[in-house]
């Protein structure tokens, strides 16, 4: 046990080192690769502080999907990247450095002298778990206690997607997102692009299924599904859907609409907005989580795919 602090210290230094690299790397692509490593290392950090739910999310979104989003941008912007980076003046950098150091020191002081005993809602959260027929308190917070946050956050995702779509040219509106996929001539790549998705889909569904009692959930499962879909689209194995397609829109909104319908149904069956009836909370929670996983997967996939840049026919 005495060795654990050493492990944690090494991990913390490694995370800071990689963050530093991401900040100072000369080429954007190199910085992005550093960032992918950063996201994965944060997954280790979260495992170290026993937040498995967050670790799953961070590894999937931070290292995985965000990483790929930035990789693509770096690859596309590379041809015109200015060779020597235009740097602001030394005085400016020193001043900013001092400011940031003050922020860090302020936070460090707060970390070093925390409120004692630490406030916690863990007991309150645990109290209602049996009534909700859930074992995972994080799921309970997301889907019950703070359901409004989760619902509004689904709308945030939708707005982000509308924002991404809005950046396409008028003439392609309603068409296929992104440019034409890569022509894959590499058999190893095809193999990988065919191999990973089935594994990922099983894993994603497992994460959703296990989330009632174990770490996991709609976010984690949805992200893994999204990653697999993105891979299949990138390798040209699956054509992206036309953004004007009614079926796609319905799929995209299915989780949000179900959530809202269940929310308003609460007025009738459980005495209030987003209340769950005592008789069958788990059934309703699953009813929300399944389409929500799909919504998250589809939205994340489309967010990475970008605005419509091709017509439906192409």
């Amino acid at each position, binding site marked *: 046990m*005495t060795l654990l602090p050493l492990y944690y210290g*090494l*991990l913390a230094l490694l995370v800071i080192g990689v963050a530093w690299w991401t900040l100072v790397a000369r080429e954007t*692509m190199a910085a992005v690769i550093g960032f992918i490593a950063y996201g994965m290392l944060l*997954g*280790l950090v979260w495992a170290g502080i026993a937040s*498995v739910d967050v670790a799953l999310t961070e590894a999937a979104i931070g290292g995985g999907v965000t990483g790929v989003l930035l990789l693509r941008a770096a690859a596309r912007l590379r*041809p015109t990247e200015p060779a020597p980076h235009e740097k602001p003046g030394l005085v400016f950098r020193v001043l900013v450095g001092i400011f940031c150091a003050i922020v860090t020191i302020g936070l460090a002081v707060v970390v070093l002298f925390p409120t004692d005993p630490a406030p916690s809602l863990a007991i309150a959260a645990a109290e209602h778990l049996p009534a909700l027929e859930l074992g995972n308190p994080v799921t309970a917070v997301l889907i019950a206690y703070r359901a409004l946050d989760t619902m509004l956050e689904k709308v945030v995702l939708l707005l982000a997607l509308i924002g991404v779509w809005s950046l396409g040219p008028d003439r392609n509106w309603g068409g296929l997102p992104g440019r*034409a996929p890569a022509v894959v001539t590499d058999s190893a790549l095809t193999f990988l692009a065919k191999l990973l998705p089935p594994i990922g889909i099983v894993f994603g569904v497992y994460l959703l299924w296990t989330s009632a009692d174990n770490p996991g959930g709609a976010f984690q499962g949805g992200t893994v599904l999204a990653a697999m879909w993105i891979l299949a689209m990138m390798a040209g194995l699956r054509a992206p859907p036309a953004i004007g397609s009614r079926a796609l829109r319905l799929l995209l909104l299915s989780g949000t609409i179900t959530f809202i319908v269940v929310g308003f149904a609460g007025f009738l069956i459980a005495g209030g907005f987003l209340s769950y009836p005592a008789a069958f909370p788990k059934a309703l929670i699953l009813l929300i989580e399944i389409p929500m996983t799909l919504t998250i997967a589809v939205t994340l996939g489309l967010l990475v795919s970008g605005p419509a840049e091709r017509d439906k026919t192409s």
Partner: protein
Amino acid sequence: MTVFLTLAGIIILATVAAGLWRILRGPEDAERMMAAQLLGSGGVAVLLLSAVISGIPAIIDIALSIALLAAFASAAFVLEAFGTRGDEPADRP
């Protein structure tokens, strides 16, 4: 046993750190991308050890997810950085 497994974890993490330091320096992006590969296996090993050390089997799920997404990120990298597209000449700069 815990102490031994922790020690193994520390050693592996240290080798990951050394490897990352070497890889990120490049000069090739493909080489830098080995960082994902290195974390995919080194990180997985460390996580598996800590799942046993801490007695939280769910940490294995993190390992699975990191292994999966490391492969995903590498594939995406190869496709984006070196893939030729249908709509543009193969010999773009």
